[in-house]
């Protein structure tokens, strides 16, 4: 099931991962024995109906939540959060009391980085995300798209080997979302980081990923996988109207749809 061309050592291995929450009505199984391996440099998306536990899975990989089973990065089991895994959240999670520039440099504060290098990192990333002239604004003065660009830049400043993206463009309008996807794709093609992305947007998953995993409704299980082998050199407007893109998009959409319908039947409410 691995895509051609990007196969190398396993960067992330998720083995027999289950997560349950205790609620007032007993224990609730959110994720049920998920196994998933990401190769170095691979871009994997997890798509599924809402409430299927896909974000929970990402938080476990991030080390923010504990669960049964194993998560290994470079063959070593994780113990909590680490700088090897950077995360971008749907609602940006910028520090509202810091300016754009200081948000981007936040992660370097506790590292022994000379001032000149810090300035260089900030200038480069502010250029990459196209926010020159906004360095000294506070997050509340920015649009949603600008905030998300700052959040991505803040994570990139720490240069993590793995990027965890939690519905990163879910709160953006359609036009901004497409621009941001193109930006992310460019960054990924440049840096070839290992990416695990949660999304409910099927086109987004097909457009960005090497591989798409479909998650069932609660308890979340990976029920189907799709390899994506599209010509990344094509511009978006050609790619998204091409036959292979749409064939795959429809197949993924139907798979997610089946899960959503099954969920609606199982849980009328």
């Amino acid at each position: 099931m691995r895509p051609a061309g990007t196969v190398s050592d396993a960067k992330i291995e998720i083995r027999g991962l289950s997560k349950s929450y205790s609620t007032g009505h007993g224990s609730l199984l959110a994720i049920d024995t998920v196994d998933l391996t990401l190769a170095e440099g691979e871009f994997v998306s997890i798509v599924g109906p809402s409430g299927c536990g896909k974000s929970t899975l990402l938080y476990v990989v991030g080390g923010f939540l504990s669960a049964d089973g194993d998560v290994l990065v470079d063959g070593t089991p994780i113990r909590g959060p680490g700088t090897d895994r950077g995360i971008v959240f749907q609602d940006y999670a910028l520090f509202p009391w810091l300016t754009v520039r200081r948000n981007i440099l936040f992660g370097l504060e506790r590292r022994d980085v000379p001032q000149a290098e810090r300035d260089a990192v900030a200038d480069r990333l502010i250029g990459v995300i196209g926010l020159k002239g906004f360095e000294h604004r506070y997050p509340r003065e920015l649009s949603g798209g600008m905030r998300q660009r700052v959040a991505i830049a803040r994570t990139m400043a720490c240069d993590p080997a793995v990027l965890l993206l939690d519905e990163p463009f879910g709160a953006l309008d359609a036009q901004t979302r497409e621009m941001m996807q193109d930006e992310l794709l460019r960054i990924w093609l440049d840096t070839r980081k290992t990416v695990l992305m949660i999304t409910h947007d099927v086109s987004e998953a097909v457009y960005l990923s090497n591989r798409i995993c479909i998650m069932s409704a609660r308890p979340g299980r990976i029920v189907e996988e799709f390899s994506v082998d599209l010509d990344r050199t094509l511009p978006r407007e050609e790619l998204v109207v091409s036959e292979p893109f749409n064939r795959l998009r429809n197949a993924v959409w139907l798979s997610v749809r089946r899960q959503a319908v099954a969920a609606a039947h199982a849980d009328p409410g």
Partner: protein
Amino acid sequence: MRRLARLAPLAPLARIVPLLLFVAAWHLVGVAGLVDPAFLPPPGRVAVALVDLLRGGQIGDNIAVTLLRAFTGLALGATAGVWIGVMMARSEVFDAYAAPLVGATYSLPKSALVPLFILWFGIGSTTAICATFLACLLPVVVNTHHGVATTPKVLVWSAQAMGFSDREMLGRVFLMHALPDIMTGLRIALGFSFVLAISSEMIAANSGIGKLIFMYGENGTYDYMFAAITSVVAVAFSADRALLAVTHRILRWHDSAVPAADAA
């Protein structure tokens, strides 16, 4: 909106109008003989008394003493309050011990404890400062606790993913997130600091503006009592405005911040 915008330059003046109406009504009540002027001296006589007290230095000296007590209690209460609030929000064990104490003492009128402090510390500054300290402590504890405890998970997780430990996040994340709440607590505490400093001076001090007000009240020199009260109103109001200005400045980044021109 347009009408409001046109009135905007007049706003500071317009805010004085209700105050002037109040003074006019006060004057008229005296003139009409509704209340014995011995018990409600007209504003003119109070103004004369105020000038007399300012010239004689009684107000300046006593306000200085009162402010020193109030601000000492406030500073101690705010410092301890922030610390306790943070500890309660971050440590379950600490919270288990502190929460019942805070809950039990939160709504207790701290002035009820002044006789107890007199017993322990006698008449004077220590008693006033202790009462002020206790009164300032609780609003800061409660607000700091709320501000720290409501720090969004995603902010904490973001910092953790960048390698920050809990200790490193204290000043960078938790206290910064709590800052708007801390400033709210501080504003409430500032009000309490005047209340407690002055009320404890009334019963347990030989100096301070509270003592002065009480003394003139006992003597029946009500125009001087009103003058002293007026000076307290002016000082408390100025202190509150100063704190608001500072708050506005350090919370420029917060959603509550408005452009300086629109600030009330």
